[in-house]
């Protein structure tokens, strides 16, 4: 089993609902966030394109943050979710430096925090909070090894890309283009 997320950039309107739903679900302190929106404008008036991406931790298969963590606080659990054990984290920030996606932040309580794919919800058979709230249904989540999971079906017959493939991290966020 490997959890992954597909983000449909054609549907996303950049409303940031995923950001605030994550904040309230995971009690992320004000001023911080585990997911965010990127708006990318290209072209020249009047031929202009916009790409909107809801981004978060890529839960990489080859995660530099896990490899560089001196205490083992950053680790991978079932389904490929990259987690941080708060009690074991010394807040050194090596993982923040190593992440090509800028997905981690220092929590004011002294540890490093990031997206968990809402593991506490997955355990209960629920989706991640961002997937469940998205008004445009542009987020698709599930086991990418199951051909009939939401994420696999969303990727079927669509072109997609991953971010910073050159980093060799094997990221698990797929952006439908």
């Amino acid at each position: 089993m490997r959890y992954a997320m597909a983000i449909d950039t054609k549907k996303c309107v950049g409303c940031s609902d995923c950001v605030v739903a994550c904040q309230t679900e995971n009690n992320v302190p004000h001023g911080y966030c585990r997911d965010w929106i990127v708006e990318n404008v290209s072209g020249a008036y009047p031929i202009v394109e916009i790409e909107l991406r809801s981004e978060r931790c890529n839960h990489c298969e080859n995660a530099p943050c896990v490899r560089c963590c001196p205490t083992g606080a950053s680790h991978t659990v079932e389904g490929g979710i990259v987690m941080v054990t708060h009690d074991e984290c010394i807040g050194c920030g090596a993982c923040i430096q190593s992440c090509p996606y800028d997905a981690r932040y220092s929590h004011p309580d002294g540890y490093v925090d990031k997206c968990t794919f809402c593991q506490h919800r997955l355990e209960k058979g629920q989706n991640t909070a961002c997937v469940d709230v998205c008004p445009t249904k542009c987020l698709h989540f599930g086991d990418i090894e199951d051909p009939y999971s939401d994420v696999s079906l969303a990727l079927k017959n669509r072109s997609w890309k991953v971010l910073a493939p050159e980093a060799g991290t094997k990221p698990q966020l797929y952006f439908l283009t």
Partner: protein
Amino acid sequence: MKTRREFIKISAVGAGAAAIGLSTINIAGLKLANAAIDQTAVSDEEMTSFPTYCEVCFWKCAGWTYVDKHKNIRKIIGNKEDPHCNGRLCPRGTGGVGMYTDEDRLKTPLIRETVNGEQVFRKASWKEALDLVASKMKDVADKYGPESFALFNHGAPGEHFKHLLHAYGSENEGEPAWAQCRGPREVGFSATFGSWIGSPEPTDIRDTNCLVLIGSHIGENMHNGQVQEVADIIGRNATIITVDPRLSTVASKSKYWLPIKPATDLALLLSWIHVLIYEGLFNKDYVEQYTMGFEQLKEHVKDMTPEWAYGITTIEPSIIRKTAREMANAAPAVIVHPGRHVVWYGDDSQRERAIAILNALLGSWGKRGGFYFKEAISVPKYPHPQYPHTEWSWKDNLDGKYPLSSMAITTELLAASIPEFGYKHQIKAWMVAGTNLPLTIPNKELFKTAAEAVEFIVVVDTMPMDITGYADVVLPECTYLERYDTLRAAPHREPNIAIRMPAVEPKYETKPSWWIAKQLGERLGLGDFFDYDDFSEVLDWQLKKMGTSLDEMKKIGIKMFNRKSGPLYLADGEEYHFNTNSGKIELYSTEFAELGFDPMPKFTKHPEPEDGFYRLIYGRAPMHTFSRTSNNHNLFDLMNENSVWINPKVAELWDLKTGQKIWLQNQDGIVSTFPIKVRVTERIRWDSVYMVHGFGHDNKKLTRTFGRGASDTQLITNVMVDPMMGGTGMRGNFVTFITEKPGKEAEA
């Protein structure tokens, strides 16, 4: 080399998940203080949920407020049964928690008093504040008659105070929803189809094959169910045609973006009508059976060719024809959307008429994928004595002006508050509930002069909005998460009701509006109008009459009912009587003709900016509602100021860079109080600039948002009034750029 690529993270978090410059030092004391709050996620089963419907905007999505065992509100989640949101709240609904937790909230009643020559607010008890408001209301009634007391309101609190005002003897209640927002479309569609659009709009987007948006930026206006349906049709590649001088988010997802020259939309609409008629693309059976005035319309638009429109709109004739054919191909599953905030140029009712006529020619009204026949359930009226007779109302003050205004015109109520204007009937005192007039009403001078002139102002709000600075008494309302309110019974595909109940006790010394209205009523000797101890009794009485109960609604939050008015759509050839003078869809409006207005819309040329000035266009951001959410911490985190969008060619001319702070000055010499950051972007024409509405607050008590960004409303001093319904057209203002901090003389 010049870059053609922008990279902006609009969730305003700087870089990725990194913080917005907050300290990362662990403060032990802070940790201790928060010990009672679980720092990590809490599972849904460990919480209790209470039904509500959202008050962050007028869409009023139903949801569940989740409260943990420490009585902390943790989150709000959409109600899956609710057609307004289908279980998915928008960012504002999700962030509604921030309204409850905002430490800047109004906490106690406040009374204005003068200390050492300086006016200040002092804290007061509810008893003192309510006694004072009631005595002022009595004074006003004795001296001038109760009619001279006006109410400005928005949203749920308004329902309780309207009842109070009517019981007291005044019908002078107005909301910006009419003259500052959607009035013109109701006039235009009513004249054509005999029916208002209303809210939510009965646009059958989910089944449409072609959606045409005239300046409507769905997705940036986060009208939830509507955005969801638009996302659905994007998913199945339906045609979207967006007319907008700015590449809005939805324009970027459209098959056609028509970057029209601002203020010329009516010419484009008329040329589309021309193409549909003269290319024989209109729905002949539908037009034959249901409409009147076709021949007059045909003659009227004879010369309004795409070539004629090209010179006005800058949209190429081939594109005008192509898009008209797209609409016809999709008909009747096509929607030329009426929009919502449509007070632009003062001829707005006529522009809306043109939109309505287009829909009629395409045969989309009453058809799947066009407009469905909405239905609402009527909520039984809780018994109360008859409202007293009133000597006059706002309508009597108009002297025949704005004959199609069916709701009070806020700006007229303000004008009637200024004795020098010589209105027949004067307004002498105000109650303002849930609307922030200084950042809502154009022409701030009018507002300020009126506020200066009236004898008494009481403001009811949850936050120290800019309006509270003008109040004599401020009454702190609790948020929607802490109170009962009237039932939501808005029209939809299926009639339904939603309930709002408190999830927690009101914080601080705040009170629900129903309680405030009742307390004032009792002090005014109107106790019979408030014959209950708790508003839940009213709800239970109403719900039982509707075949349910408060207990049941607490468990389900929303209840659907069967339609009684017939099917959602017209069957082919079905007989149908429209609620117009002729009983037909009126392509030629007999109503307008009788009142001396153009029975068919005509294009009028509007003023253009002088050299060095740019048309000011404003709009919405998906994470904010008007000016009411900018201090909400959750939503502030998503967007904490607005910026002014400037085309790169213009920016080069002025040597402006993204992120640079500038001041805007309008054609009347008004300079924005606060600076605004430049956003250089290819997403806008060179003759216009754009900014998101609702920023530039000047009340320091809004500690987060004070002074952040600029207020578009402040720069809107040229108001083009719609002679039909009093709408305040706000798109006729032009701004130029000031790069150095302006001196005092410039501000004056």
